[in-house]
């Protein structure tokens, strides 16, 4: 055969400190308990002995788990084997990667370790997890996975990146406090007023307020610690996001994996001209057992920032000309009195853009290629006014661009236009090389079979060949257009 076959498998293990980090949380809790029980007095040490036995069991279990877990890259798949009693072997086809994350929880960070998470469409997040690897191995592996994904030589070093933006800590803290403050400040005022009026009411309200305050502080802390030091960089292998205060997360979203981009402008931020940017990527965040149905995860592309910055990032995430938008007809005011001032939508050949919202303005961009279905809905009120709503759905739950309350005759045309444009976009993508921007072609390699009949098909740099692969089995099947 002319195409590269699987090389001899070279199994590798996780980092030897893995069991220590895994057990770290439990052990630290036990150590604290031990210290406290000893501090009480040196009476009897039976409790301490039990604690020590527990620690030993936890560490032993971790060590066994470490011994039986191994991973390798076998040409186009990442294989992970684990389990002592029930052997579990996972194969992750690299061409189907939706995103690669390097996560470093606080404790792992102390030991210089990282966790690698590979997200595939329609898989649960646990499927592609390698915890823990040394930082260097994790970085190398990520570069290798993404290089293989893009069909270039796996030994290519990680391409240089260009930092697009970082979020200043002051602005992050301000924005988080501001969005929480809208309920916080009135509650404080109400409490102060109540204290003057009646003490019993103040006690009742105060205890409720304390619970609320606890949740509020926790929420603020969680948002600040997860988004701290947020930076976005553009690299040839995708958009890279880094964030985190105690534990850090580095995410890479390969180009053309973005299902939708959302720009959100909460009411309290509008005074400062701030907005938030989110991207939707296919690939599960939670567990979804139903086969064939893929879920999506939402990632913050910018936790807080100015409009100019947001638009610059949108142009990076979806490199396409912006469509011109138009508002719905005036009579839509009767159907949507609160949101009419925001409603707007439009499309061009490659991109759909729609604005919705009553208090918080939300703008959604969906690339035409990502359209899963097109729907038209007309309710009783809309029928009276001669209005209809058209949805363009992308993969996931409630991820769509809405042409809300458009004139009925316009929407008929819209459904046909969106259908044929999204079809044309899909065909253009299938015709162009895998993983490469339209017009250019990717280097030779294994990619997801565009015909859908097999898992992978070999691309020789100019055209699809007859060589196909399903899991471990290689075969021959002409590509037939």
């Amino acid at each position, binding site marked *: 055969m002319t195409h590269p076959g699987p090389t001899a498998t070279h199994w590798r293990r996780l980092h030897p400190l893995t069991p220590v980090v895994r057990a770290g949380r439990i052990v630290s809790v036990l150590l604290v308990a031990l210290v406290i029980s000893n501090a009480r007095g040196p009476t009897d040490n039976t409790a301490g002995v039990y604690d020590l036995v527990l620690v030993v069991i936890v560490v032993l279990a971790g060590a066994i788990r470490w011994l039986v877990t191994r991973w390798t890259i076998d040409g186009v798949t990442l294989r992970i084997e684990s389990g002592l009693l029930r052997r579990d072997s996972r194969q992750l086809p690299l061409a189907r990667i939706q995103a690669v994350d390097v996560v470093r929880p606080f404790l792992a960070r102390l030991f210089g370790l990282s966790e690698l998470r590979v997200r595939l469409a329609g898989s649960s997040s646990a499927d592609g997890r390698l915890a823990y690897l040394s930082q260097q191995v994790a970085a190398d592996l990520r570069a290798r996975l993404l290089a293989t994904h893009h069909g270039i030589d796996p030994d290519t070093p990680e391409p240089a990146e260009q930092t697009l933006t970082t979020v200043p800590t002051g602005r992050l803290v301000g924005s988080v406090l501001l969005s929480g403050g809208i309920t916080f400040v009135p509650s404080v005022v109400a409490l102060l007023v109540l204290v003057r009026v009646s003490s019993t009411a103040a006690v009742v309200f105060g205890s409720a307020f304390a619970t609320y305050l606890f949740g509020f502080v926790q929420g603020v802390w969680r948002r600040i610690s997860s988004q701290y030091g947020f930076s976005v960089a553009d690299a040839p292998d995708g958009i890279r996001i880094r964030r985190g205060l105690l534990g850090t997360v580095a995410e890479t979203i390969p180009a053309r994996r973005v299902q939708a981009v959302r720009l959100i402008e909460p009411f309290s931020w509008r005074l400062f001209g701030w907005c938030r940017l989110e991207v939707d990527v296919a690939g599960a965040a939670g567990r979804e057992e139903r086969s064939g149905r893929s879920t999506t995860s939402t990632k913050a592309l910018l936790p807080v920032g100015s409009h100019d910055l947001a638009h610059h990032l949108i142009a990076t995430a979806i490199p396409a000309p912006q469509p011109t938008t138009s508002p719905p007809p005036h009579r839509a005011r009767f159907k949507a009195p609160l949101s009419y001032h925001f409603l707007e939508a439009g499309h061009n050949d490659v991109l759909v853009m729609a604005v919705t919202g009553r208090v918080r303005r939300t703008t959604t961009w969906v690339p035409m290629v990502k359209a899963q279905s097109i*729907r038209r809905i007309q309710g009783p009120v809309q029928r009276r006014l001669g209005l209809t709503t058209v949805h363009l759905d992308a993969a996931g739950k409630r991820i769509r661009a809405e042409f809300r309350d458009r004139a009925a005759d316009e929407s008929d045309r819209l459904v046909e236009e969106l259908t044929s444009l999204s079809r044309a976009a899909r065909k253009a993508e299938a015709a162009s090389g895998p993983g490469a921007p339209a017009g250019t072609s990717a280097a030779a390699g294994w990619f997801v079979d565009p015909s859908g009949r097999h898992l992978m098909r070999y691309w020789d740099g100019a055209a699809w060949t007859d060589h196909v692969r399903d899991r471990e089995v290689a075969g021959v099947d002409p590509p037939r257009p």
Partner: protein
Amino acid sequence: MTESAIVTTWKSPSPRLWKMRCLEAGSVGALVALVAGLAGAQAGAVPGAAAAGGAVLSTGVVLRFLRNRFRSWAYQERDEDLVVKRGVAFRRLSVVPYGRMQFVDVTAGPVERLFKLSTIKLHTAAAASDARIPGLERDEAARLRDQLASLGEAKAAGL
């Protein structure tokens, strides 16, 4: 091309679906009328008759709604996509490209089986796309399922 595509024939669910709905609504309505009539009869003959009559009348209203709903279901197999429309108060039209199909569900409940009918549902990666066609005759459902499966395979596109 798009104009001609929209003119291609709309197909409807089997008329047996309407009979099935009549049976379902009719039996529930009769039961409600019986209970209401008996409960009303405790107070006298006139309230009993009125309660039963009311129940029968409301069954009629429900049946009329079901009739409209049954008539509104229609689907069309075009070259590249399946179009399904439905609804009376909220009129919905879904266009699902064959290439976006993830899997096809064919289900038949006990009552549906009695009438030799089944429901076909198309799933895409988007949770919102609802292409569901109820009340298809068995042969038609099997044909449509095979047709969709083969078209979906031929035109499959990546996420």
